[in-house]
């Protein structure tokens, strides 16, 4: 009996160690997992930022492996990642689609003039409806979509060269090889 009572605190301690071991390994609680992985791009029809009289439909995003980048002029980190998006476009020619989120289109066009435009296509999502359908909860967020228009990955936050080289780049390469 005496042996058993020694065992109890040891078991409890081991339990706490296991719990905390996994607890501290959980990623940043601010990072929500995406519910939209392996689902097709949501249906939408929204104006084109550069040609406001024309509209962009979900079908226009299908056909090629691409990055779907949610950005806004009110988002300072978007300026931070703009250089990397430009570098990716210039070195790989990857199709990058911009979703201008909750923003003023005039300010957005001025922003592109000032910082450059690596985007192949621009969508204006002034009310954030497409963003909500994508499960976006802030900017910047970047999705990898395959040639069939299926969402394969989401990155929350700034796309840095490290993120591109370690995660997005290899994934895009695999998807391009597969299609």
């Amino acid at each position: 009996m005496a042996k058993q009572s020694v065992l109890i605190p040891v078991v409890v301690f081991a339990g706490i160690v296991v719990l905390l071991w996994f607890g501290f390994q959980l990623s940043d609680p601010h990072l929500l997992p995406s519910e939209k992985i392996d689902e097709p791009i949501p249906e939408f029809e929204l104006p084109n930022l550069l040609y406001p009289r024309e509209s962009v439909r979900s079908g226009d995003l299908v056909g090629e492996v691409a990055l779907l980048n949610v950005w806004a002029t009110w988002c300072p980190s978007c300026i931070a990642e703009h250089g990397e998006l430009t570098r990716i476009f210039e070195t790989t020619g990857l199709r990058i689609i911009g979703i201008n989120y909750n923003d003023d289109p005039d300010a957005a066009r001025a922003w592109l003039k000032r910082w450059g435009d690596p985007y192949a296509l621009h969508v204006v999502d002034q009310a954030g409806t497409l963003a909500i359908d994508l499960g976006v909860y802030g900017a910047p967020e970047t999705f990898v979509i395959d040639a069939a228009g299926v969402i394969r990955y989401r990155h929350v936050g700034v796309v840095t060269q490290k993120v591109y080289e370690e995660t997005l780049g290899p994934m895009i390469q695999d998807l391009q090889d597969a299609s």
Partner: protein
Amino acid sequence: MKKHWVWPLLMMSLVWGSAFGAIEAQDFPSEAVKTRYYDLIAMLRCPQCLNTNLAGSDAMIAQNLRSTVLRLLVEGKSDDEVKQFMYERYGDFILYEPRWTPKTWLLWLGPLVLAVMGLGIWWSMGFSRRDTRQGLTDLDRKKVQQLLER
């Protein structure tokens, strides 16, 4: 001298101002929709905040989601349909009461398991304590006797 307490009051008024700043003017088609709207935005969590509901957050996404909730209600969606809409986009995080899925069973059962474990420990401690009180063995008595006689 009076100025000393004016500043803290001013600061506090600033804080309060922002705490109540999240409620914007909405046009409700009926009182019923208004009630359901306020119930729903209290039940849904702001995806950008760790522990604030949609009602209490100033984040842009919370504003967007509040107007989405109202839009869906005006379109005639039921409360469950609104929750399902949010769940499909933002997952378990957005519901303060997570659904029963393989990913959440530990969350639901965890407290129960801990309570059972606690009861078990308490019970076994009661046993071991009773054991120590079982009195002295003959050997113990002999030892005590020897010590007393010294």
